[in-house]
């Protein structure tokens, strides 16, 4: 029986060691710049904006090792819910705050400002073999609308090019802000879409492989995914009423790429901005956002837009 008892002791010691090691190592802070800022900043919201916020948070933490920033991805709506309940101090959003959410924040007494941080150009991609260069918003609506029965490119109304491949549609899940925005702008109502497209859920990579592999393939996602895969896919120009415009940094910044360029926001809360670490973070965010935006595939703000954002923050804090 002695060996069993020894075994028990060894086992518990091992478990204890694991626990202590795990807890103990949290004391090793990453080597970072010393600063006096400390505390924790909880951010949640859009999974589109998250890569941008994550990148800023990463660099901020490297320079301020006493601050912990967490970035969640519950979605724009989920983020606002937590924000207006006081659970987060900044909300990432790929659309403007909606009236019900405004009410909820007012009820809890949460003051906030809408701070634009970047622009995203929702890109519609097709297979490189596809001769079509430009589609109007109406044509896109005809293809993606809830009652659409179009199954081949030949059936697209008003198509100038001679192309009749079978239409293979790829799109994000109904959970995503990208889906919400696309359906709202192209089909007139958020959530209104034909149901028989290839739903890639969270995995936009699958849209890339899908459209690449199907001659009549078509999909949509954020600009960063297009940038990552520029050689493999063709981006369509979109005619929002003023002629065919290709998605790019310039066209999005100048508001020419309509209606698929969308502003991306963060919503800091007034109360949080009174804390030095949050104020420091938001200031750092705006000071560095343009550099970071390019790195993660978003379209940076113009000088004007950046100044407007800084003014909005100053108004709150």
């Amino acid at each position: 029986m002695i060996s069993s008892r020894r075994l028990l002791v060894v086992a518990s010691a091992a478990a204890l060691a694991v626990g202590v090691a795990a807890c103990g190592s949290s004391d090793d802070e990453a080597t970072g710049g010393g600063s006096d800022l400390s505390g924790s900043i909880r951010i949640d919201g859009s999974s589109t904006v998250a890569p941008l916020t994550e990148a800023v948070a990463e660099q901020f933490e490297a320079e301020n090792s006493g601050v912990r920033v967490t970035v969640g991805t519950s979605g724009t709506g989920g983020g606002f819910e937590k924000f207006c309940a006081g659970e987060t101090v900044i909300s990432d959003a790929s659309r403007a705050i909606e009236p019900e959410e405004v009410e909820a924040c007012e009820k809890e007494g949460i003051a906030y400002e809408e701070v634009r941080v970047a622009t995203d150009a929702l890109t519609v991609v097709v297979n490189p073999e596809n001769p079509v260069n430009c589609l109007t918003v109406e044509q896109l609506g005809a293809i993606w609308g809830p009652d659409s029965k179009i199954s081949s490119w030949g059936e697209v109304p008003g198509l100038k090019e001679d192309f009749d491949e079978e239409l293979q549609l790829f799109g994000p899940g109904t959970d995503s802000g990208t889906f919400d925005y696309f359906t709202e702008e192209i089909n007139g109502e958020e959530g209104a879409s034909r149901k028989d497209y290839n739903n890639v859920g969270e995995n936009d990579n699958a849209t890339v492989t899908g459209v690449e592999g199907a001659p009549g393939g078509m999909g949509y996602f954020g600009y960063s995914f297009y940038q990552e895969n520029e050689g493999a896919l063709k981006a369509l120009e979109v005619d929002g009423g003023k002629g065919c415009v290709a998605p790019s940094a310039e066209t999005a910044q100048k508001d020419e790429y309509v209606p698929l360029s969308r502003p991306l926001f963060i919503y800091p809360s007034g109360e949080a901005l009174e804390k030095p670490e949050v104020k420091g973070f938001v200031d750092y965010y705006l000071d560095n956002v343009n550099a970071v935006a390019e790195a993660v595939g978003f379209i940076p703000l113009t000088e004007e837009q950046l100044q407007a954002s800084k003014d909005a923050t100053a108004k709150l804090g």
Partner: protein
Amino acid sequence: MLLQDSKPRYGEKAIQGLLAACGILSVLTTTAIVFSLLGPMIGFFEIVPAKEFFFGIDWTPQFEPPSFGVLAIVAGTLNVTLWAMLFAIPIGLGTAVYLSEYASPRVRRTVKPVLEVLAGIPTVAIGIFALTFILPEIIQPLWPGELLGGAVGKPFMALAASLGLGLMVVPIIASISDDAMSAVPHGLREGAYALGATRAKVAVRVIFPAALSGIVASVVLAISRALGETMIVLIAGGSTPNFTLNPVESIQTMTAYIATTATGDISTGSLDYKSVFAVGAVLFGITLAMNSISIRLTRRYREVYE
């Protein structure tokens, strides 16, 4: 007098109570599960008619206008489970028969631990393997042309998830069936051999029927695991609710729906939120049903040797 029962030891009773409490925790857990599902589920059925839910084949909760026919995602679950079992049962049973009747002890000693390794692989790894290898390198090159719509150009596929699921449950079937077959008394085998039967005949006609209860139990256990699996189907099966058993289409299972929606952009108390619990309740119900079938089956087929 020394051997007579003195006053009761309260310490003993206290310990017994403490231990009983540990056991009762299991009942509490089940109760908690039922309760956590019940509230939002009732709220769900106040808005969505039960007939639409249980008999509808269109599951599009976040489209405008939404449709709540759960059969679409139930079909997705059945789809992947069916094809997974069609793969796993022959492979698993074949492996079990081989290990128990044909393999030398050395082969057995090497293969059994390797099967344990297969059983221990995290499902997220199997899911990524299914999506990035099974789908493009195995299914798409080997699938006959346009059969059932063809496999080319599909980013997700029920069959890819099925094969991944199948790989995951093969060790369950193989291990438990092998144990069951090995437990058959040697006397039965030796008697059959003495009568001139070949190894194949012994395996199929003598051992297999004798071990049937264990084999059936292993298959039922495997089906339960496959029905309840989330990550493999989430990664490789797709997110398109599709009322079909066609293996080369994109589908969405109940588990994948719960995972996607609960981590996505929904607000507490909304209809989407409640639908997660309604689907969870259906899944829980199916699991309980399968489990009682399994218990009843093992009880009925248990063979007595002595």
